[in-house]
């Protein structure tokens, strides 16, 4: 896979005045057009409204940029199982709350 998208192959127009086809298909910034199309209108959508993220800069939870990939073939030595640690924290917190209630 190349790092840079290859320049689009353009058919010769054969006309002196650019047509609509020429303007669309021969755009000097065709690569940026493809990038805009790909990253702004495609891809997994995980929150329904980006303005939520923009309006609430939550400093307690660090906001995360995100993409997804398969984990089974990735970093076989990776042992940062955040889900398990998160679950353990919630269990400890629930126990602490239950303990405080019992002492009242």
């Amino acid at each position: 896979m190349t790092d840079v998208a290859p320049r689009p192959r353009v058919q010769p127009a054969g006309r002196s005045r650019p047509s609509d086809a020429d303007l669309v298909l021969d755009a000097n910034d065709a690569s940026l057009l493809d990038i805009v199309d790909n990253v702004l209108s495609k891809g997994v959508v995980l929150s329904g409204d980006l303005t939520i993220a923009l309006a609430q800069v939550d400093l307690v939870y660090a906001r995360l940029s995100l993409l997804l990939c398969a984990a089974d073939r990735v970093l076989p030595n990776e042992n940062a199982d955040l889900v398990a640690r998160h679950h353990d924290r919630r269990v400890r917190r629930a126990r602490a709350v239950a303990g405080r209630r019992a002492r009242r």
Partner: protein
Amino acid sequence: MFTTRSGERFRIIRNGRVAAVVTQRARPLTPSAANLRRYDRTMRELAARFPAILPARFGTTVPEDELLFILSSRRASLARGLATVRGRVQMTVRVMTTAAEVPPATDPFGSPSSGRDYLTGKARAAAAARVVPVFEPIRGAVARWIRDERVDRRGGVASIYHLIPRSSVENYRRTLNTAADAAGVRLVVSGPWPPYAFSAD
């Protein structure tokens, strides 16, 4: 934790066989041309590093708790999506269309006599919207490599996205251009791209 060539630091958040690759930001990215290009470069680097990725839309930010819930609740569909794109890349073809080439769409709301008729009408309209008559003979020439296809029509331009094996890019491109020349069709093909168009459910 790992660092990309551009110096961005990412970490992996796993849930079974699905993981999220994330980075922390103090504020959301603005959609400037430079940021969009940088985002695409990052996706390409990650697509080269991992055998399957489903790129998130630019600017997607979620709290960590919500992310964990999403990974858990959508694990099956995400795993299916990853299996579909594994070892494959996106090629984008843009073709000019004219009003004469747009097949008449069935009005899905035209006096349906039942719920089934209504839904059938909508399905037919959706299928008609995916037809690009001028591209049909060209699609036939590259059909052997197409694992999946998406079509998007905006104004007079049809954007056709093909998911093909990573190893078939040059053969696909050569065959597509030869078929377009033979058919006298003007088109632009770009790629390979990460599978942006095949990432949404």
